[in-house]
């Protein structure tokens, strides 16, 4: 067997390239210069295979502060050194094994991250939300309010975005204030409420942190009684009472921290982060919505109104939405919700919260002058 052969040697101090002879010694690789002078003696255990191309074995010396390099291109010699030296790993078996370990541990880390994302973050957020001072929540609410308003306002020329300020709308605003007053008295929330109707065609309502509730014009149009509107407002007051806005802000921040920073970006994973967040938020929001429904039923019963009205308007509104788009809706299956509301409300119908004349005025709150 060939026990010596040609190689190229760089001493790590200068770029001078030396054509050398490599000798295979029982304990070490011997590097000899042109005149047979010993340039280096590298024990097999200290050899380090460094990156090169397929045809060459490039060796360094582990632990050395210099970048000494020995390049062997003779296939026989490469085979012998590979067999004698433990750190040299031409077949890549050890590299593959350590890679597998990296992948396995990363998968484990990701699973635990997902579990924290699904269970830990919401738990933490709901535990922390009560400790956020009300003054901070209100200030946060003002910021969000400004942003949401800018987002919702279609900017119709010459019309106030909020309903109830034109001459012909004032009676409607008075009716709304009476309705909200009855609910607020029953709810006794620690934050001042501001409930307004705004000019948007969707049948919807939203609650922001700090007690801002927006009822859309489209919802008033779809409602058949004041109690139905009251039921929806009650649902939104449930979000305010449970501090859901603050909680979801904390959750969103927690999830951003968790996924946004750890999940990196080889191709643009930003969209994936947002999608993952949406799906996770969706899973939380089902429970949150159900809790707000129960709060609304309770509130309507306390205020003496028709607790089942919320179920009735929900059925009417969501019936109109095509089934395919359901994944993006923040509300659990309507049928389940309506049934749960019905069960909680019991059989009693209650008395309407507003007189017929007041309800008629409320319906014209966005009518204009």
């Amino acid at each position, binding site marked *: 067997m060939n026990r010596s052969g040609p190689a*190229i040697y*760089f*001493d*790590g*101090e*200068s*770029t*001078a*390239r030396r054509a050398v002879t490599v000798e295979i010694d029982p304990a070490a690789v011997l590097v000899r210069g042109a005149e047979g002078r010993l340039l280096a003696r590298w024990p097999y255990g200290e050899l380090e295979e*460094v*990156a*090169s*191309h397929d*045809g060459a074995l490039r060796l360094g010396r582990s632990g050395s502060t*210099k*970048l*000494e*390099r020995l390049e062997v291109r*003779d296939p026989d010699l490469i085979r012998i050194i590979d067999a004698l030296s433990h750190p040299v790993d031409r077949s890549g078996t050890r590299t593959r094994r350590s*890679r597998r370990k*990296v*992948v396995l541990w*990363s*998968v484990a*880390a*990701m699973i635990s*991250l997902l579990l924290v994302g699904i269970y830990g973050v919401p738990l933490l957020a709901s535990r922390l939300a009560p400790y956020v001072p009300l003054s*901070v929540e209100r200030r*946060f609410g*003002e*910021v969000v309010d*400004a942003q949401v308003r800018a987002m919702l306002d279609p900017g119709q*020329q010459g*019309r106030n975005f909020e309903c109830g300020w034109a001459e012909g709308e004032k009676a409607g605003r008075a009716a709304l204030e009476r309705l909200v007053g009855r609910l607020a008295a029953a709810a006794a929330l620690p934050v001042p409420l501001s409930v307004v109707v705004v000019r948007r065609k969707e049948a919807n309502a939203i609650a922001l942190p700090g007690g801002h509730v927006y009822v859309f014009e489209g919802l008033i149009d779809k409602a058949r009684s004041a109690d139905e509107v009251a039921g929806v407002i009650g649902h939104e007051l449930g979000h305010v009472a449970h501090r859901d806005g603050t909680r979801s802000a904390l959750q969103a921040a927690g999830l*951003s*921290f968790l*996924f*946004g*920073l*750890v*999940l*990196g*970006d*080889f*191709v*643009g*994973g*930003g*969209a*994936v*982060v*947002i*999608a*993952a967040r949406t799906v996770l938020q*969706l899973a939380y929001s*089902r429970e949150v919505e159900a809790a707000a429904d129960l709060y609304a039923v309770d509130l309507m019963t306390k205020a003496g109104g028709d607790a089942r009205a919320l179920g009735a308007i929900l059925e009417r509104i969501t019936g109109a939405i095509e089934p395919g788009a*359901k*994944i993006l809706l923040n509300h*659990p*299956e309507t049928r389940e919700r309506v049934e749960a509301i019905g069960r909680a409300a019991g059989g009693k119908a209650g008395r309407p919260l507003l007189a017929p004349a007041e309800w008629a005025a409320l319906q014209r709150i966005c009518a204009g002058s």
Partner: protein
Amino acid sequence: MSVVEVAGAPPLAKGPSHVPVVDMDRGGGRFHGSERRFFGLLVRGALYLILTLGLYRFWLTTDVRRFLWGNTEVAGDSLEYTGTARELLIGFLMALALLLPINALIFLMTFAPGLLKLSGALGLLLLALLGQFAVFRARRYRLTRTVYRGVRFHQTGSAWVYAVRSVLWWCAIALTAGLAYPWAVANLERYKMRHTHYGNLTGRFDGSGARLFLRGFPLWLVVMVPFVAGLAAALAAVDWIALGAATATDGANARLRFEEAGPSVAAAIVLAGAGLGWGALAAVLLYPLFRAITLRWWLSGLRLGGVAATCHLRAGQVYAVYLRFIGYALLFGLGAGVLALVVLGVIGAASESIGESAAAEIGSALLVVGGYVVVMLGYSAIYQATVMIRFWRLSFETTEFAGLRALEGVRAAAAPSSPFGEGLLDVLNTGGGL
């Protein structure tokens, strides 16, 4: 194409074709990495990326660099990448330690309404500076991990100085609609190369901004002039007084008046659309030419001690690279589309029998996300295996180096640097977070 082969040094008795050719003062670079193997490496990497939700990227990046560096040969010797995935991971953790508090601070600032606008502008500036800081420091990491003939490259200079210069130059580029670009690149490249060293050799950049401007200005004219002309014509076509009257009046007849001002508005939209369409089409068609011009100019300006590079890249070569990518990308898109249809069909059939439930909804959403990830990773792998590697190959194989003897007596003179910049770049590129 390779100058080494053309010059034909006497073949040595033993060994493959890339046996070192020492006695040469001029020569080209060579790249002998197999694209098939590179693609295999990328596909396996993509699989692991999915399994580890991206954490594998440090190992994949390192593998890619080891492959590219190791297969690149200049004057008979190949480059060596000595960086490790563990270093990249540590750099990432360092960047995380810095950015987590900043991220938290920005989040908390949103609670104070007055500070919101200020924090937005400040945050943007800070991000831009940090990004350029990271670019410079990441370059330093890469250079100190690049070894050639047992001697490493390194970089001096201040990353903050570079960041400030770079942000100012990019402002100038934005304000001049791109016309300042050649001078900006030349200036930044001069700063980078002046602080680039190989052992005791120091780099230099001799490319001139004015030259690049003369080369690129015709392209700028072809893209921008019709676009601006279309926009100007559109502005001139509108009867502003009628339109103003229409929008100023409120009430029900505003729409009617708007329609009266209509013909001129329609003409304006057509003109602006034509200008915009032309601009976009020209930009797409001329982009490879632009890449060829800038790459050739940049490579031809590089100097390292007595070594000077001259690049002979032709625009046709760059067009071929992009056409090849488009071909493979279309094939992949077709395959992915067919697969998506089949999967959707199966799901449709299954959901009819199972019915709808919350779990099914979340499952289908996850499937959509998964499909998106697979498609994006697929395109990324195709891009890297067609465009990126070909640009790497062309950069070395179309470039002729003169004064290569200067590389023979270089003395080593540096230690490896921290991977912090790489980590910062990695964190800043993330979609979420900041």
